């Protein structure tokens, strides 16, 4: 057995450039460490911590999770030991995101990335994804999941702080390709020497704030991030299924009424309207019985007019109670031929559905009107008792469809916003 060795220690040292104190928490994994005071990049493997370069940051960035913070993440303790800001250029506009390096001596390393309030929990993937084309879309497949290509960009490291288990260079560049399958994201980082794949999972800032016991609130997310899960997932399908169920129920209701309503013809007659007779053209029909519950009465008038109009003043009068239900209907029908072909407007028939007529003995008072110059008109009146109104069903169906349509519209809007930031936006390219 080996002689017991002293457990690895956290190293405390002074920056060779500015003498500020710094600690190395990554034990022997740390290759490069950045002085928090003067931002010099130091060689952690050199006994004197030789200065590799003075990192000339244009702007000093304060990490949202301070270096050295420990938190419980996925059941294990992790410590934030490194931080970097990476920038891509899209249409001449720089877009930057942050990366936090998390360390646990038994579990290794993982990352948290942040962009405009959107966080991702990232680990290195050690299986090779398969990149392919599928129906015109660039995709990547790994571990049974398919990811859609979102963006390819060249990323430059623009700010570093803390420790890293690799050599850090100012202006380090890598070609980054992102593939998404919300809430997951598959990314590849390609440098001259190698390509590294990683898998990220979208995480709510609140979870991170809770895990690392950070004060205040996480930054509010802006816009929709590439692998941000849609709040509408599953919702759209569910609401349309519910809609289908309700529409079928509506159909059943309408069928029931079609079957059980009497739709009984209680009166039918044809008449002639002589030309020139505009005054006192009123008459009454013989009496008829309206049976059953308080229900509708349909008055259907069919005429033989052509390129003319007629108006019918109608009143359904109850002989016993003396109650009259007054209404009117216009009939107008015009047709002809022109350069575009034949056309027609209106029709020679009309129907009125009188509501809530109590049962009893009734007659119909009819007073037709016509253009005094018009020719004669032959017309027929048919009265039916207890005819269901189709209008309610159509309106109800429309009202049932509106909420799912609205939800679908919102869901599509969410996705449109997501993809507007991708390489596939209509304007031809967006930011990260």
């Amino acid at each position, binding site marked *: 057995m*080996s002689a017991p060795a002293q457990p690895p220690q956290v190293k405390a040292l002074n920056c060779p450039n500015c003498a500020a104190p710094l600690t190395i928490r990554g034990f022997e994994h740390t290759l490069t460490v950045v002085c928090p005071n003067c931002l010099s990049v130091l060689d952690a493997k050199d006994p004197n911590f030789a200065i590799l370069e003075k990192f000339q940051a244009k702007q000093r960035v304060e990490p949202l999770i301070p270096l050295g913070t420990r938190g419980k993440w996925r059941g294990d303790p992790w410590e934030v030991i490194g931080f970097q800001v990476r920038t891509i250029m899209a249409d001449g506009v720089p877009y930057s995101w942050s990366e936090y390096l998390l360390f646990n*001596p038994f579990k290794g390393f993982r990352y948290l990335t942040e962009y405009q309030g959107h966080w991702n929990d990232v680990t290195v993937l*050690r299986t090779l994804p398969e990149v392919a084309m599928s129906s015109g879309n660039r995709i990547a497949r790994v571990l049974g999941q398919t990811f859609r290509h979102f963006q390819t960009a060249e990323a430059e490291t623009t700010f570093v702080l803390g420790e890293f288990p690799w050599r850090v260079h100012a202006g380090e560049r890598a070609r980054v390709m992102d593939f998404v399958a919300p809430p997951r994201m598959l990314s590849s980082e390609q440098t001259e020497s190698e390509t590294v794949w990683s898998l990220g999972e979208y995480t709510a800032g609140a979870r991170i704030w809770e895990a690392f016991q950070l004060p205040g609130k996480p930054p509010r997310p802006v816009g929709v991030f590439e692998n941000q899960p849609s709040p509408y997932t599953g919702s759209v399908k569910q609401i349309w299924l519910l809609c289908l169920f309700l529409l079928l129920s509506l159909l059943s209701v309408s069928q029931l009424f079609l079957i059980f309503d009497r739709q009984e013809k209680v009166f039918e007659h044809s008449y002639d309207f002589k030309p020139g007779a505009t005054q006192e053209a009123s008459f009454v029909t013989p009496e008829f019985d309206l049976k059953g519950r308080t229900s509708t009465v349909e008055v259907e008038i069919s005429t033989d007019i052509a390129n003319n109009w007629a108006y019918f003043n109608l009143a359904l009068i109850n002989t016993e109670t003396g109650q009259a239900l007054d209404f009117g209907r216009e009939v107008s029908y015009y047709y002809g031929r022109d350069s575009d072909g034949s056309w027609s407007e209106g029709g020679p028939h009309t129907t009125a559905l009188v509501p809530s007529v109590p049962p009893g003995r009734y007659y119909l008072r009819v007073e037709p009107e016509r253009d005094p110059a018009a020719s004669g008109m032959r017309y027929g009146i048919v009265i039916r008792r207890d005819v269901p109104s189709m209008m309610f069903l159509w309106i109800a169906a429309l009202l049932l469809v509106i909420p799912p349509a609205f939800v679908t519209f919102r869901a599509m809007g969410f996705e449109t916003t997501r993809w507007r930031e991708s390489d596939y936006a209509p304007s031809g390219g967006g930011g990260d």
Partner: protein
Amino acid sequence: MSVTANCPNCGAPIQFLWSSAVQTVCPFCKSILVRRDVNLERVGAVADLPQDGSPIQIATEGVYRNHSFVVVGRILYEYGEGGWNEWHIVLNDGSSGWLSDAQAEYAVSFLTPMAGLPPADRVAPGQQYRWNGVVYEVICVTRARYRGVEGELPFEYWDKSDVIFADLESRDARFATLDYSDPQPLLFTGETVDCDALRLKNLRQFEGW
């Protein structure tokens, strides 16, 4: 099954964790000892191994695919970007394998006899090879410096100069290494493993953890 012998250099008792060990290192005088029949022959010495961040140590135990194993030896390599360990593990069925450990990214692999392996000057990233029905792609080719050995190894291995390794990955988390330490390339195949899945016990302590 342990075998006891005495170090020919300093006389300290050597207890073998693995009966089939070919080589071991005396923990006290750091002599490299090779088993020749009944006796141990001293063939050299190993310098103090540099400090490294691996949580694994000799006698760490774990489970791989329902076989429990013990870490009995190690080979330490360094390269431009850092270092890694090849931990020699012995499973409960007596077989010998390797747990490679680079910044707590683990892979378990076993020596796989294979013909037609590419020579060191031919292998390059992006190449694909099909061994035992699995397609592997070369991820990186590393020139590493041998830094030392510790514990029990299944072969004689010490004082190597620069060694070339090629790492390969497959589409289903499999892993392979081409080891060019010897004139004849050696192939090790296995899979990448998640730290939690190994259920490691008897790990090193770290200050503050």
